[in-house]
């Protein structure tokens, strides 16, 4: 059976696309799938450093497309997680080095080699975005609970529907305390504004910074809340669509529980 192509996109930059792509890829590979993650940000590659594979790059996606190497030669095998491969972006070209028809060809080949191919889409709606969505079967839209990120997500969702792709939403960097105080959009607010299906909720988590510092997979950190949420997102993407979505909550101490009971009575 042919593999799936899933694009991870957001419109706005800096909302966590690359970390989420790397983590979902790792989690899917841990579930036993043969997974490739592809950095589509030509000229500004980062998926390699987030995954800790930057020292092992020989060929890149532009080399594959221009016929200088085979997919197998460019795909870097992750030594910590079986069946996880990275195809890095080129750092010296720009987005116009790849055309949509090249991506249709490449994705056709990827479907034969891998169960799941995740495309880490660059920010924006220009060539890099068009290249990333042209052959995608599914789309994961990432946004944070901020007006700028939600507005850009809305634009991206519109463009995905125009390509007949039904997107699923991940709300990233939720701060439960701020949501409870009414100072951050809740995921319900975001879903209402965007009217789109929810795939998962990820809490703001310091483990993300630490694991990016060292280039270790976040999903291997058992204690990380974001890592756990991402493992569940990967399950929902592949075979378990009805796995319940956990809502990030404040870890309440005894005294806080007591005082919140009092304030409710008042």
């Amino acid at each position, binding site marked *: 059976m042919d593999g799936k192509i899933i694009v991870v996109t957001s419109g706005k930059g800096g909302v966590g696309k690359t970390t989420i792509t790397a983590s979902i890829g790792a989690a899917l590979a841990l579930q036993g799938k043969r997974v490739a993650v592809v950095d589509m940000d030509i000229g500004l590659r980062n998926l390699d450093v987030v995954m800790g594979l930057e020292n092992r790059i020989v060929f890149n996606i532009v080399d594959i497309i221009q016929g200088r190497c085979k997919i197998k030669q460019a795909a870097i095998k992750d030594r910590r997680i079986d069946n996880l491969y990275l195809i890095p972006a080129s750092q010296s070209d720009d987005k116009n080095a790849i055309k949509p028809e090249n991506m249709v060809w490449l994705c056709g080949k990827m479907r034969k080699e891998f169960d799941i191919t995740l495309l880490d889409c660059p920010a924006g709606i220009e060539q890099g975005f068009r290249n990333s969505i042209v052959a995608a079967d599914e789309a994961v839209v990432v946004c944070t*609970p901020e*007006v700028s990120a939600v507005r850009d997500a*809305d634009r991206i969702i519109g463009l995905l529907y125009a390509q007949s792709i039904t997107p699923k939403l991940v709300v990233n960097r939720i701060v439960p305390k701020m949501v409870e105080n009414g100072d*951050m*959009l809740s995921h319900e607010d975001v879903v209402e504004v965007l009217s789109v299906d929810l795939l998962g909720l990820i809490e703001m988590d310091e483990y993300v910074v630490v694991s990016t510092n060292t280039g270790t997979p976040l999903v291997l950190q058992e204690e990380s809340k974001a890592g756990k949420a991402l493992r569940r997102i990967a399950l929902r993407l592949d075979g378990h669509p009805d796995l319940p979505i956990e809502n990030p909550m404040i870890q309440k101490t005894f005294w806080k529980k007591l005082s*919140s009971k009092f*304030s409710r009575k008042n």
Partner: protein
Amino acid sequence: MSLNSLLKKIMGKPASKDVAKNRLKFALLTDKLDVKKETLKDLQKDLIEIISRYFEIDKDSISIDIQRSEECSALVFSSPIISANHNRGVPAAKIMPVHKSPANSV
């Protein structure tokens, strides 16, 4: 709920996330109504062509615009009529609604 947010509630200040949500809804609405100048010009040309079949109109005083408010948005087209084009023999009443039509029909 923290003391701070409780105080804000007592003072009648809306939660900042509700402000964000309302601003977002309005921004998305206007984003979707964002039409290129050329598109409006093309529409105006087509409208003039059709209306001219029925009315003699002052082509220089025509205005076309999309007006937005929080409740609704409308495409407003106004055109001074000089006279009905009697050669057509079409009742004027049938054509009147052209003056104002909801934007979502565009």
